[in-house]
């Protein structure tokens, strides 16, 4: 037995036959439609638009969303999502799932809090891969401190007039709509609303952030709102209740990121072990040197712990009682594990790992975006201790 991506995954008694089948079929899709092109897309800095309808057809975009809007929810649970996030991470090009699946953070505000009219208008084309939606929270003036955001939306008759800007917005260049956090009231969290802003509105403009450490394939953008008039029907949830909308969005995003980060760490393990079994130094295989064997064991140990932690959190979600503090710390556990595995795998691979084109080289560059995006490690720890009532 070796330590490849599959054999390094501990058994999960929650998985049934259809979960394994989903993994098999999704992997076939990814192996034929994405992996042969992944590196080129990353180098080119974008993904062809045709990938979205294909991902919709295989069931990836609609996974877990209501059937009435073109999603697939009947019989679908957290384990299907975990598998999807693992398999997308296995590509080893983080910008692809980040951009392809960005509706995973952009659409839930609409579906969870939007009016029926808004849901019916927005969700079907997004889940069919025909239109794109992003989430706009972070601003040039501040990110993690959501309660201090400065983009304003002032009511004027049947419209809000939006001024300000958003940055580091994944999927921002391609988005047809952005679920945007705006200030409609006074200072602090109580003055924040969520507004769905169409990107074809007058006064909207954007620039691509194409010089990034990682996630090259992702169309990350800065968005500018200059007297953008948005119909009041596009308000998501109640006015000044936006903070709640934002906060309820985070658990799902963090679980998806944690699942992906563990799988990315596992890719590093797989690549490192394969190399260590082949490469000979000082008359024996790298894998026969104790110092290398210990690295492999430490990687696997941390991956095991992260897998078990992910499973427990998904079990609490399935049981309907997730603990946001535990999920916040899971995200930290996962990014630290990914960081450790990327580092150790790179040490084992040596020079070949430093060359562009290997999965480990890319994953190494994409540690930080995972450790910062979706809630930085520092914010996660702070949130957890507050959740625990310390």
């Amino acid at each position, binding site marked *: 037995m070796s330590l490849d991506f599959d054999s390094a995954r501990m058994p999960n008694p929650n998985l049934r036959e*259809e979960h394994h089948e989903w993994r098999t079929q*999704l992997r076939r899709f990814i192996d034929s439609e994405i992996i042969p092109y992944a590196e080129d897309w990353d180098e080119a800095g974008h993904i062809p638009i045709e990938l979205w309808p294909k991902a919709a057809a295989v*069931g990836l975009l609609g996974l877990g969303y209501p059937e009435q809007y073109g999603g697939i929810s009947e019989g679908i649970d957290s384990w299907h999502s975990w598998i999807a996030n693992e398999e997308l991470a296995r590509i080893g090009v983080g910008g692809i799932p980040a951009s392809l699946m960005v509706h995973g953070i952009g659409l839930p505000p609409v579906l969870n809090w939007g009016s029926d009219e808004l849901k019916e208008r927005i969700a079907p084309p997004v889940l069919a891969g025909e239109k794109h939606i992003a989430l706009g929270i972070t601003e040039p003036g501040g990110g993690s401190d959501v309660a201090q955001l400065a983009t304003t939306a002032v009511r004027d008759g049947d419209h809000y007039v939006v001024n300000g800007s958003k940055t580091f917005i994944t999927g921002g260049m391609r988005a047809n709509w952005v679920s945007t956090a705006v200030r409609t009231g006074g200072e602090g969290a109580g003055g924040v609303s969520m507004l769905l802003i169409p990107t074809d509105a007058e006064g909207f403009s954007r620039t691509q952030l194409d010089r990034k450490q990682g996630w090259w394939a992702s169309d990350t953008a800065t968005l500018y709102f200059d007297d953008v008039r948005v119909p009041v029907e596009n308000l998501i949830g109640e006015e000044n209740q936006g903070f709640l909308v934002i906060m309820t969005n985070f658990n799902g995003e963090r679980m998806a990121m944690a699942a992906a980060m563990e799988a990315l760490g596992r890719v590093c393990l797989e690549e490192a072990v394969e190399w260590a079994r082949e490469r000979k130094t000082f008359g024996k295989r790298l894998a026969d040197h104790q110092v290398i064997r210990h690295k492999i064991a430490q990687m696997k140990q941390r991956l095991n712990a992260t897998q078990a932690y992910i499973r427990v959190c998904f079990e609490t979600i399935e049981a309907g009682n997730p603990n946001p503090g535990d999920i916040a710390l899971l995200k930290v556990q996962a990014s630290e594990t990914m960081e450790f595995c990327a580092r150790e795998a790179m040490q084992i691979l040596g020079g070949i790992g430093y060359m562009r084109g290997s999965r480990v080289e890319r994953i190494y560059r994409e540690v930080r975006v995972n450790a910062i995006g979706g809630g930085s490690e520092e914010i996660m720890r702070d949130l957890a201790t507050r959740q625990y009532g310390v």
Partner: protein
Amino acid sequence: MKVLVAVKRVVDYNVKVRAKADGSDVDLNNVKMAINPFCEIAVEEAVRLKEAGTATEVIAVSIGDKACQEQIRTALALGADRGIQVETESNVEPLVVAKLLKGVVDKEQPQLVILGKQSIDGDNNQTGQMLGALANMPQGTFASEVVVDGDKLNVTREVDGGLQTVSLNLPAVVTTDLRLNEPRYASLPNIMKAKKKQLDVYSPADLGVEVTSHLTQVSVEPPAERQAGIKVEDVDQLVDKLKNEAKVIS
């Protein structure tokens, strides 16, 4: 037209198989199993016939223990309408499989039976031909193209000399070669729908077949490890080695 497709559960083609330590068989412990790739091509062809309006119903049949229901479900997710499992122990030899399939053919009366030309475990390449003989149906093996033409079937076969096209009277048996089609992947909605499709289980006795054995597996061993090659200094040395070591030229 009713189409019957046979699917076999085999070790996934990505898996590097190992022999058991005692050499009695291939080690299947914790090994990923899948539909035999040639059988998957057979399912795809049947589903395409259905999508083209030629086939009215596609039935996927597998022979083996309960685990092979997974492969039937995969075929259902790929587009087959219902499934049949003939429950036996695993490792039934080709003649018995052909007899059991003949039993299913008698029950279902399909116009067309599509099988993989061989399975990637036993590599016997026998079942389709045996079924054709037992059921007294014409056969088009190693198909790279299948065209329905009224009550006839034109099958292009990949033979050593090139391509041969045969015209068969329906009902007929077809076995698939690699280039017949590229199988699709099943979507998540279809995987979920497949769970609800009908799957009947028969025993060999239900089909009037007695499971017998004419073959005994003596031993299984891995292929000899390839020795590393060498670099020759010049052409003279190459010729010398080909002459005196490899003895392939004189």
